[in-house]
């Protein structure tokens, strides 16, 4: 804990050299970038390994890898752009971004444009055989919008007013409702966790926070009780408890995933050598179940390395939130940290059989263009917050 939250005076990395002044490249959080690139690189190799067998008989067995690398390139560019956005400008235009992404979120419902994948009508068909998942962008815009709302302090009071909190909840509720209709349960859970984290760090009264968490739990229970969730959604949420007795599809997935990971042992079968991976026993192992490839082929050592790289990203995000100059910056960074953390826990947790099976990707690692772009944009936003904080710090000297 001490290294995660160093005191200001000893903070050598964060405080730029006063004599030499700052600069965009110098001030960037390179640890964060290196960790994210490392995770992406591992991700590319894992996606390659996972997709090789599927595509062995097709004309280009490397097509997945190529598309993945192109996506990564586009995502990096978007991330750089996001990191260069003017802080005030970003805040001012947040409502526009939010409304735009809400509109985008509705597009899958338009006949002819929407695509249903794995039971979730959450994709938009675009030319060149690609699909876009607007809910990924919705996460970013919800974070920005809630941060903007909750950092607005009319009377310089210490905590957000009830009105701000209700408004922030509404901001989160709109996309949550849409995504719920699209049957994307995983994203709903992530959005709920992100919203709660932002509201908590915004400093709302503890009473409200407890009420919100309690309300969320009751809401889920009520949804199950009154049949608001489809039966298969409940199945997915409960099948992980007793996977061996359940022969439904999601239990099959959970079992195969655990066989793959467990079989990897300490040092794994070696890249391209995992019998479960290469025999296509684990479904969608290039995206949602990509962690099983790491587990089986790279073993405990390799998958721990991957988890540690992701943990470094979380650590840097929290640190940026901690050092943020203003509440807006802190809330943006908090939102991104919470998003990445819960999504990572849910995704890896489901492959390990300790979380229910939901269709969400592993940030930085899974194949999937939209997810990758959204996460790199989020990284860019973290850099923006950091660059702004350092600039303010420098100007105060």
């Amino acid at each position, binding site marked *: *804990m001490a290294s995660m939250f160093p005191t200001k005076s000893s903070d050598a990395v964060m405080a730029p050299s006063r004599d030499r002044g700052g600069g965009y490249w110098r001030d960037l959080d390179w640890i964060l970038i290196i960790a994210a690139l490392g995770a992406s690189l591992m991700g590319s190799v894992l996606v390659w390994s996972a997709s090789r067998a599927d595509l062995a008989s097709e004309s280009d067995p490397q097509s997945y890898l190529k598309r993945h690398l192109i996506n990564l390139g586009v995502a990096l560019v978007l991330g750089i752009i996001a990191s260069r956005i003017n802080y005030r400008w970003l805040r001012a235009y947040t409502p526009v971004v939010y409304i735009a992404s809400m509109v985008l979120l509705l597009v899958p419902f338009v006949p002819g444009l929407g695509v249903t994948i794995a039971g979730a009508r959450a994709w938009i068909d675009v030319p060149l055989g690609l699909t876009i998942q607007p809910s990924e962008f919705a996460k970013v815009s919800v974070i920005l919008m809630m941060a903007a709302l909750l950092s607005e302090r009319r009377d310089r009071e210490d905590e957000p007013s009830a009105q701000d909190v209700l408004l922030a909840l509404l901001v989160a509720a709109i996309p949550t409702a849409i995504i719920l209709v699209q049957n994307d349960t995983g994203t709903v859970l992530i959005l709920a966790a992100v919203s709660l984290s932002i509201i908590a*760090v915004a400093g709302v009264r503890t009473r409200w926070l407890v009420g919100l968490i309690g309300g969320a739990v009751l809401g889920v229970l009520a949804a199950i009780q009154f049949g608001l969730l489809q039966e298969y959604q409940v199945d997915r949420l409960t099948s992980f408890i007793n996977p061996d007795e359940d022969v439904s599809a999601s239990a099959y997935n959970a079992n195969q995933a655990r066989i793959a*990971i467990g079989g990897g042992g*300490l040092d794994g079968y070696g890249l391209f050598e995992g019998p479960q991976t290469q025999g296509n026993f684990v479904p969608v192992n290039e995206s949602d179940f990509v962690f099983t490839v790491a587990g089986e082929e790279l073993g405990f050592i390799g998958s721990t390395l991957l988890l540690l790289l992701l*943990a470094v990203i979380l650590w840097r995000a929290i640190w940026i939130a901690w050092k943020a100059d203003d509440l807006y910056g802190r809330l943006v960074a908090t939102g991104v940290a919470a998003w990445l953390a819960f999504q990572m826990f849910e995704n890896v947790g489901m492959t*390990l*059989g300790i979380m229910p099976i939901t269709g969400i990707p592993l940030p930085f690692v899974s194949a999937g263009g939209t997810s990758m772009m959204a996460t790199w944009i989020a990284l860019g936003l973290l850099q923006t917050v950091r660059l702004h904080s350092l600039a303010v710090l420098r100007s105060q000297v």
Partner: protein
Amino acid sequence: MSQRSNLRLFVLGALMVSLVLTLLGRLFYLQVLTGEEYKVAAVNNTVREVVEPAVRGLILDQAGRPLVSNRTSLVITVDKLELERAPEGADAVIERLGGILDIPAEGIADRLKPCGTEGAKPPPVCWNGSPYQPVPIAQDVDPQIALSIMEQGQRYPGVDARLDAIREYPAPFDVNAAHLLGYLGPVTETQLEEQGPTTAFDRLRRTDVVGRSGLEAYYDEEIRGKPGVTTLAVDTAGRVTGTLEEFAPEPGDYLVSSLDAHLQSVVEEQLVAAVQRAQRQGYPGDSGAAVVVDVKTGRILAMASYPTYDPSIWVGGVTQKQFDKLMESGSLASNATQGLFAPGSTYKVISTIAAGKEGFNLNGSYDCPSRVKLGTQVFRNYESAAYGDISLARALEVSCNTVFYGIADKMWERAGGDDAGREAADPIAEAARQLGLGEATGIDLPVESVGRIASRDFKAENWELKRDTWCKNAVEGYPETRKTDPELADYFTALDQENCADGFRWREGDALNASIGQGDTAVTPLQMAMVYSAIANGGTLYEPRMVKAIMSADGEVVKEIPPIVANEITGSRAKQSIRFLQRTLPGVTTDGSGRSPFAGFPLNQIPVASKTGSAQVTGDKVSTSWFASYAPADDPQYAVVMMVTQGGTGSKTSGPSVRKIYEALFGVKGSDVDPRRSVLVDGKPSRDLPVIRDDGTPVIPLGKDSGLPEARETITARGDEGGG
């Protein structure tokens, strides 16, 4: 920013750390702690094995005659899962199948029920293999019938025919040896669990049959062989994507037993003859055993148990009716190795050794009154005979109980009488222990009884075990019995009061009973045979062995099993006692209780050392007939022990059969001895191992020595003519 925000952010950070740690912990558990299990699961997922079962090794007798061999059989199997999907219902198909195979449909249904499910019959009738595995329901089916079933596939869904290698019992000389050879059965759940998760190609599979008793079980690993396994890689759709491994099947090794089929058949016959002799005298003669041991090695040359059963009934699984009959007849367990019996007077050799060790004069004179009185108890001689002052040798010859009572009484007094503790000297029990009683003999069979020695130790132990019950009964006074028979209840109560108070005490009466092999002492006939072997060879107690070598199917010697010494009797007094017994026991046959069965036997050429026994058993009206012996007494080779429960005296019931066994061993006809007439091919157990030809068939003695029908003999001997 507010303190509250800082605190919340800190908590959020801490939450993330714990989330990461949770994932790492779970990962460690799955991959490092339980990884092996999942590896097996992954292999099961991605590979398919095509298994060709290994040919099980033969079991040969000492001359090379096959006691157990293999043959192929046309077997009808039923795939239960497919059968249950039959549109007209499984029962209709089973009914039809029963009709064409001419077996009751009920039997088929019973056979198909997995063991442990509702309504399933106990094993071996129920199916204890995998539910995904076809269940064999009929063996040796007429090819015409099998063909007509195959041709009408739609009428018999899930029914298939295949050729299986199954066990066959050529039975040279009509030998039975069921308890020794054992039988096969499907591998048990326990065995699979013990094996643990493994993917080794020669692991036990659910479909395997393994030895479940006798030599088949004891040497299962050796004779099982290794299956031929081709491991194919498959993908999710079950498509074969390549061959990963290939192992050719390796036939199992052969067991070369020290049994001789010809001798075994004589011993089996003579045991039945002894039982019939008992029955002719009007006695129940309900069970018996006989053992022939090579005294120089401890190898078993023949061992028979009555009642017995046909070993081939296990092939392909028994029916409920057969199984019930087996259980009812008590023929499943071997009386020779598992039956426990009071040894009676055959035990006097042990008392004699103890006496010698304790310094009693072996050449002295001892009083042999007709009875000894002890309080209200009277201890008698057989038929209350009195011989006056006689030598110890004469006491053995005529089996005088009272001489041994006297010796035991002195020993008991010396040890401290009634007040002696549990650790006090108990020379007779000590000698019995040295000769292997009360302990497993170590024979190469999966089960044997240990038996017990009546002793201070046993009595104290037994008291500790039963004290609570005795004391409870002593207080309660048998209220149930009292209602109908108050006198009996009083008797029981008094007995239990005494037992409760000092049932741990080694009483004078206990000591007297123990000296003549009565009371709590119980032995297996095999143990007694090993005792007499040890006396014959001058004090070496061998572990009995049934197998003398393991050979590969192509005739190489894999392992020779040497004689194993279990204990050596040392000490000059003990040695002297054994020499005394060696000098004395031939007299039993010439001038003592063993004389009548050997009347006319050429004892001048083949002196026989023997000791009779007629053990009283509580509850039995008739004594257990024992005849323990070895011969030739001047150069001991064989020990022969026979016993029949409720069979009368040793000399009348068992003695004549033991004589016949010696006649067969030595080639005795009338008073003429000719080793060429011996049932053993060279007149003695073969020193050499049999020859196995390249094709796996053993070379067996020809003509009358083969013991096999001519047709079979020529088949197995064909390679011989070709000069192989």
